[in-house]
Structures are given as structure tokens and as C-alpha cells.
């Protein structure tokens, strides 16, 4: 039932990217009978490509297209040409995501109202509330197969590693301790098996227990006969007519030849670096600052979540590598409580690192070698630890810009990803380190390591949602204020970051957006 659309068929929705946002949108539209062409820059990872090999899969999955890191964050120093950890391929970064599927809390949609203006931050409220999004969170959880009440799937069984965190957290007085919600089957469901505790979720789930769009949304969309997926097709530019309406896209096909695809609606879901880059690269005489950029906010307010890793040597073996990489979350520090010295909150998420990645991040930089590091690694099997995920404040100067001279393989300027943490980030991180040290101390930890930070994996905010067209790029449907038939369908639309890993919210927003697109198409408004 594979659909094939003519390149000048201007009745289709063109969707750029096939990850969490793009894959979901394609399926939602297809189920409503709306035709789409998905253009995906990367190729297909077959099941045979998926190996339980942490380093090998890092090399295989990671998008190594040229991007520069700038600003005062760790990226600029530690991995200056790999600011982000992305996948370019069918399914996008959902191929290697861990599956944590947390909802935003109510206050996280209105951080400005709750906390007032914050110096050096570009604070704003979302134009939507938790209440409005709740039904879509339910639908997202059912679609993705998220453990919890909406699906009735129990959270995953507790691994040794999580039992360390849970017991330590309990000893210091925490109570919000759960092995979910995860978009990983804890029972056979929806044609996918229950998790076998293989332990390589971030290398691609070999058995498909974890939701990723390449094995769920995309095949389901294609099945309807309403969706054509073209892989190895990188969109270079979005085109528009004299009235300022989007008319289609120019893309490079697998052979590097330029092609065009006409469109009735264009939806961009390239993740928060490539999405603003494409808008900026699509500048024209009518839109000299880039498409949908009358607010000047395209590429600005880039957020990544306050994050850090804390691993400690426990008195007994943990076998951290056995079992789901993340399946265990402590949520007591999520509420907004400025008395702690910062606004916003954070999650503590148990996270497995294999020996390869542990050896790379326990210490970082040219000096990461020697007896101390080697001895710490000899205790690998005793290590237990977490990933801290906290609210990161939007700042206008943090963002994506185009390189003045350097071009990519298609002749387009490469992106520069700049970020300098806000003071609030630093204070939150310090607090979180303190809490983790206490939790691990409570478990009689012998030594504690604060790890070097990873390349950014949660990317948000670079085409943000705001009621006021002067202050944001899209409205509450993800529709650009400037161009009614141009939509943004990924984490770029986040007004603020919350303390929740972003994907569930991306999917919920896109389900809601698909309804709106269908409604507006039916009404002939777009």
C-alpha cells in the first residue's frame, strides 16, 4: 500500500523529519485520511544494524554532520564539533532515546506567572495549560505504550541499580520513587514484546519493546496508503509564493540531486537545531531574516535541561549494565520551590552507562587518564548512578546561528550552537549534586564521581510558542505566526523546558496539532 505522490502534487502535507515529532504527525494525519510526504535526511536502520555495542552504535547512529559549539557551556570545550547527540535516520533520535515519558507539571507551563521576571532570562508562559494538554498526554501515552494509568501497563520491575537509588532516596526522606513512566512495554502490547532487560535501549532496542517511530508511527502511516516516506532526502529550503504562503520544499535526494516537492502545508520536525537552521537558510527577499522570523526569535532561547551525572561506588556489586538503561525516577525535587535558591525543579533518573561510555565521561579532557581513573573503572561493577534532568531557563543569546563561511555537503552554512548556562542552572545543579551525594552516602558509597556532561540530548525552544507574535515564532498549535500553512512539530516550540524529558510533550503537542491541521484544511483556511 505504499503511496507515491507526484512531486508537483500540491495537495500533500510535507513533513520534514521522521523522529518523535515528524513520525507522529505523519501517522496522526494518515489516520485522518490526510496525505503526506515525509522527507528524512537519514537512511534506515534495519534490525540487523542494531547491536548491543555501546561504542559501535554511537558511531553508527550518531549524526556527525558538522555543527559547532560555542558559548560558556561544557560543549564548547569538551566536544566542540559535537554539541548535540542526534540521530539522522528513519525514526530520528527516538531510535536511541531511553524512553522516559514524563508529563509537565502545571506550574511548568506558566513559569513567568509563577516566578515573575527573572534577570537575564527570557521568561514567558506557554499559551496552553496542563489542563488543555492532559487529554493529549493520555493519547500520547496510549499511542507510545507508556507504563502507567493511561495504558494500565505496570511500571517496569526494579533493577539492582534502581533499587540502590530508591533505597538511598527513601533513607533521605524522599517518597516519589517509581520505575516509570517509560515508553517501554512491561507486558506484550500492540504487537511489540515486553522488555527483556537487555540493557542497550540507547543503542536501539533490538526487540522493539521500546517505542520508536521507525517501528511504530512510520509503518502505521505507510500502511494507510496515505503516506510516502523518502529517506536520504535532506530538505535544503522551504519555498513560498508572493503572498507569503509556503508552496513546497527543495531537497537533496540520495544522489545529491536537487528535487522539489510541492505542498499544501509544510511541517518542520528536524529537532531544535536543524529546524531553526532550515528556517534561517530559507531566507528570501520577502523574509530576509529567515522564514517565520518577524519576531526575531527563530534560533533563540535554546534550552537543553540542566543535567549532570553522579555515580558512586557501592559496597556491593550492582551490575549496572543489567537491565533497562533508565527505569527509575525520583521526583521529589520537581516542584517549584525558590527557597532552595533556584526556580524550577529537577528529576533524578537512574541511568546505566556501559563501560565504554563510563570510561569516557567519568573524567573528560586531555587529562582524563592515569591511575585514579583506572582504579575507579576497576570498580565499574559496583557503580550506581543517575542522570539529573532539570529546568533550564530560556535566554535569548543561547541559540542557533549560521556559520559565516563554512558550508555543509549541500553548500548550506553549518549551524553554530551557543549556550551559556544561567546562574539558576548552576545553583540547581549544585543542589542536585548535594542531594545525590547524600543519597549515595546513605547507601555507604565509597567514592562519588560527578561526571563530565554529555553532548546535549534534549533540545528545545528555538522556535518558541508564544501568544504574542512579537515574542514567539508559533501560536499554541505550533502554527507559525507569519505563515499560516507552515507548522513546527518538534521540541523547538517549547516556551520553557520544564523538568521533564521532552519527548512525551512533543508527541502530545503533535497529536493536538494534527487535529488542528485537519480542521483548518477542512475549513479551507490553509
Amino acid at each position, binding site marked *: 500500500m505504499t503511496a507515491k505522490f507526484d512531486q508537483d502534487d500540491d495537495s500533500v502535507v510535507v513533513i520534514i523529519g521522521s523522529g518523535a515529532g515528524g513520525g507522529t504527525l505523519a501517522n496522526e494525519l494518515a489516520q485522518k485520511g490526510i496525505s503526506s510526504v515525509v522527507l528524512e535526511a537519514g537512511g534506515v536502520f534495519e534490525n540487523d544494524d542494531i*547491536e*548491543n*555495542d*555501546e*561504542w559501535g552504535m554511537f558511531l553508527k547512529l550518531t549524526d556527525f554532520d558538522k555543527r559547532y559549539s560555542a558559548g560558556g557551556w561544557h560543549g564548547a570545550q569538551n566536544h566542540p564539533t559535537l554539541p548535540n547527540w542526534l540521530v539522522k535516520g528513519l525514526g530520528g533520535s527516538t531510535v536511541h532515546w531511553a524512553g522516559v515519558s514524563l508529563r509537565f507539571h502545571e506550574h511548568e507551563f506558566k513559569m513567568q506567572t509563577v516566578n515573575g521576571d527573572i534577570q537575564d532570562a527570557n521568561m514567558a508562559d506557554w499559551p496552553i495549560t496542563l489542563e488543555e494538554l492532559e487529554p493529549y498526554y493520555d493519547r500520547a501515552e496510549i499511542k507510545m505504550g507508556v*507504563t*502507567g*494509568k493511561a*495504558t*494500565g*501497563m*505496570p*511500571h517496569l*520491575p*526494579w*533493577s*539492582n541499580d*534502581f*533499587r*540502590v537509588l*530508591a*533505597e538511598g532516596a527513601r533513607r533521605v526522606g524522599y517518597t516519589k520513587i*517509581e*520505575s516509570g513512566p517509560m515508553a517501554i512495554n*512491561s507486558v506484550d502490547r500492540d504487537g511489540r514484546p515486553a*522488555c*527483556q*532487560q*537487555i*540493557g*542497550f535501549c540507547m543503542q536501539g532496542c*533490538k*526487540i522493539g519493546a521500546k517505542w520508536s517511530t521507525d517501528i511504530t508511527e512510520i509503518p502505521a502511516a505507510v500502511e494507510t496508503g496515505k503516506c510516502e516516506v523518502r529517506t536520504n532526502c535532506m530538505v535544503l529550503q522551504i519555498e513560498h509564493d508572493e503572498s507569503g504562503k509556503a508552496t513546497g520544499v527543495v531537497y537533496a535526494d540520495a544522489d545529491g540531486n536537487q528535487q522539489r516537492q510541492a505542498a499544501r502545508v509544510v511541517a518542520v520536525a528536524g529537532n531544535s537545531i536543524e529546524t531553526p537552521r532550515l528556517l534561517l537558510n530559507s531566507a528570501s527577499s520577502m523574509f530576509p531574516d529567515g522564514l517565520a522570523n518577524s519576531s526575531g526569535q527563530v534560533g533563540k532561547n535554546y534550552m537543553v535541561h540542566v543535567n549532570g551525572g553522579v555515580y558512586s561506588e557501592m*559496597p*556491593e*556489586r*550492582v*551490575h549496572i*549494565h*543489567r*537491565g533497562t538503561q533508565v527505569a527509575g525516577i525520583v521526583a521529589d525535587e520537581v516542584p517549584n520551590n525558590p527557597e532552595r535558591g533556584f526556580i524550577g525543579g529537577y528529576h533524578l533518573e537512574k541511568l546505566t552507562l*556501559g*563501560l*565504554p561510555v563510563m*570510561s*569516557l565521561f567519568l573524567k573528560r579532557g*586531555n*587529562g582524563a*587518564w*592515569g*591511575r585514579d*581513573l*583506572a582504579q575507579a*573503572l*576497576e570498580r*565499574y*561493577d559496583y557503580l550506581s548512578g543517575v542522570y539529573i534532568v532539570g529546568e533550564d531557563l530560556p535566554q535569548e543569546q543561547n541559540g542557533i546561528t549560521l556559520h559565516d563561511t563554512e558550508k555543509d555537503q549541500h553548500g548550506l552554512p553549518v549551524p553554530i550552537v551557543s549556550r551559556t548556562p544561567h546562574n539558576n542552572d548552576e545553583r540547581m545543579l549544585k543542589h542536585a549534586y548535594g542531594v545525590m551525594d547524600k543519597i549515595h552516602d546513605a547507601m555507604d558509597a565509597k567514592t562519588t564521581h560527578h561526571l563530565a556532561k554529555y553532548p546535549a540530548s534534549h533540545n528545545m525552544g528555538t522556535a518558541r510558542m508564544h501568544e504574542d507574535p512579537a515574542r514567539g515564532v508559533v501560536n499554541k498549535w505550533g502554527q507559525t505566526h507569519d505563515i499560516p500553512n507552515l507548522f513546527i512539530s518538534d521540541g523547538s516550540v517549547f516556551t520553557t523546558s520544564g523538568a521533564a524529558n521532552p519527548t512525551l510533550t512533543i508527541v502530545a503537542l503533535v497529536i493536538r496539532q494534527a487535529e488542528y491541521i485537519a480542521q483548518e484544511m477542512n475549513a479551507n483556511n490553509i
Partner: protein
Amino acid sequence: MSIQTEHPKFKKRESEGLSRRGFLVKSVLAGVSATAIVGAGNNAFAATLNEDQAATLLQMVQDIFPHPDFLPLSIYQDVLKGVLTEAESTEETATLLAEGLKDLNARSTELHGVPYADVDAYAKREGLLRIIQDGAFFQKLRWATWAGIYINPEAWPQFGYEGSSWEHGGYIDRGFSDATWLPPGPTLEERMKAVGK
């Protein structure tokens, strides 16, 4: 030249009783074309690197990620074989190694009166390497050693890291939650109840 594959653990020089250099070089050279390293020939490597230097490199890779009494010497020998093999065919690498060693030994002689491999204390050798750690010579050996240990499945068992698991059915029945020193997690019934089932 004998091939020393049966050497299970790294043994410190002091406990060895053998001429360290003779022993080390033999081991390093096992499996690598010796003529390419010490024999006559017209490649840059043969001209620039001798057995002493190979022995120094072996000391270096052991000092970069030292796991004495933990990893077998063969892990480090393999690291060095890889580097030496590359130097055989790549003049740039051969020169990098030869000049790096010359520089390291000069610093060592200046500070401690003996070449690097004869400096007896780890802390002193580490100190020397810290001085050169930002250079290409050191970083080349550091990454080669890193790869030879931490992404090498042969070294993993010693760390308790078990590698690929899907072909064994994951850990669902193989100890993902086997710790007896921790309170157990909730039962399936409790987890079902928590989601309203």
C-alpha cells in the same frame, strides 16, 4: 621470538627477575613483523625506532591506564602492536612516535637523570606524562590505550561488564535484580495496583 600469549596477569618489573627490556620487547614484538621494526630497510620506522623505544612505549601505555594485577599484559601488547603496525605504513605516525619519545626521554633525563622507562616510581612517570599530555604524541597513545581496554570485549569480563546480551535473552532471567544486599522492589501485584489494575 617467542609468543607470550599465556601470560595472564601483568607482573611488575620488580617481581620479574628478568631483564625487563628483553622481556618486554619480546612480548611487544610477538606477532608483529620484527624486521619492520628493528631490521634494516628503507622505511622511516625502522630508521627511527629501536627495541628500547618499543619498550618505552609499552611502559607508557601501561602508565596511561594502569591496571596492574587486573589486566593481562597482552592487552597492552595488543595496543602497542596496533600502534606499531600503523607506524610501519604511516611515516607520520613513525615520526610522531620517534620524536615524542626523544622529547619524553630528554625531559626525563633532565628531571630524573634517567630515560623514562627507567624512572622507578609511577608518580614520577605520571608527572612526566602530565607535562606532555596535551600533545599529539601522548594523545595518540592515550586513545589507542583507551580503545584497547574499554571498548575491547576481551578486557570487559575483568571489569564485570558483560557486553552484548540480547542473544542470551537479556537479563530478565539472568540477574538484573539479583542483589541480596538491597531491599527488593515492589511485586508485580503492587506495580499493577499502582497503575489502577
